[in-house]
């Protein structure tokens, strides 16, 4: 790991990135749980908007990702922290399955819920509080089970941090 970057550049870049992400979620309608539930409601009045959000985001990022990765290093860090695991395991599928159930029940995923905090919505505050508790519960059970030995594939250094930030 490199030391924490100095100066205002890194902070401003992260702030601007968060701002863009939040405005994008708001503009796209993803801060409306009804639109998210409408996308997942394939048996009802289906709303394809969420698919268009993903298409727009993936189209831009797929191109820019490849351009950015031509650089040897990012602007303010010594290395790229991009997940490199390729194995499909039960944690990945089980976790995604649980997340999907919660996503469908509430119409919130983490990003839109955090943006909605800015509106002062009581439901968003409750959702985020419960989400943080769920994350801490997972960390606690994870810490309790990682004592048991389990087979791990060889991992490059970028994977050694506790959260790959996927």
């Amino acid at each position: 790991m490199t030391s924490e970057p100095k100066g205002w550049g890194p902070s401003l870049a992260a702030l601007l990135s968060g701002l863009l992400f939040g405005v994008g979620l708001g503009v796209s309608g993803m801060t409306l749980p009804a639109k998210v539930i409408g996308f997942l409601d394939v048996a009802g009045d289906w709303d394809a908007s969420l698919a268009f959000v993903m298409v727009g985001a993936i189209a831009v990022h797929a191109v820019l990702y490849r351009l950015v990765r031509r650089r040897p290093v990012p602007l303010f860090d010594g290395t790229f922290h991009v997940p490199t695991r390729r194995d499909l395991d039960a944690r990945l599928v089980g976790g995604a399955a649980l997340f999907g159930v919660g996503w469908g029940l509430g119409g919130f995923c983490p990003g839109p819920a955090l943006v909605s905090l800015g509106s002062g919505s009581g439901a968003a505050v409750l959702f985020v509080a419960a989400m943080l508790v769920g994350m801490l519960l997972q960390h606690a059970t994870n810490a309790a089970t990682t004592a048991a030995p389990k087979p791990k594939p060889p991992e490059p250094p970028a994977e050694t941090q506790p959260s790959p930030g996927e």
Partner: protein
Amino acid sequence: MTNFTPIPALLGGILIGLSASLLLLSHGKIAGISGIVGGLLTPGTPDRSYRLWFLAGLLAAGVTLAVLRPSTFPSASSSPLWLVAVAGLLVGYGTRLGSGCTSGHGVCGISRLSARSITATVTFMATGALAVFVSRHLLHLGGRP
């Protein structure tokens, strides 16, 4: 598809793609919201600064939109609060167990053609659709969206 809004959806998606690219270019990080938040809940995470600034940006976007464009947010929750709490618990636990959410797997991972992220996205969309079917059509929780 009475509520279909393809143009704002595409525009918003483009902003999200730009955001993820900016975070990668500046910090070399994946714009995965659950990972960014989860790292702050883990003692000893070294790179707290970019996480806090990114989250500050998300919140600032929410405040700005709430002032300039109140229709960005629902006027009232369409779900009972106990359901919102259960949903939050599942989202928190599931995203950390599965190493990502809609942003990290759905946007960033698919952009890299990651097999793990494609698998995760197909999985959470399938169980999400199932949850909506059971909760809204079978149990009639929260009414029709």
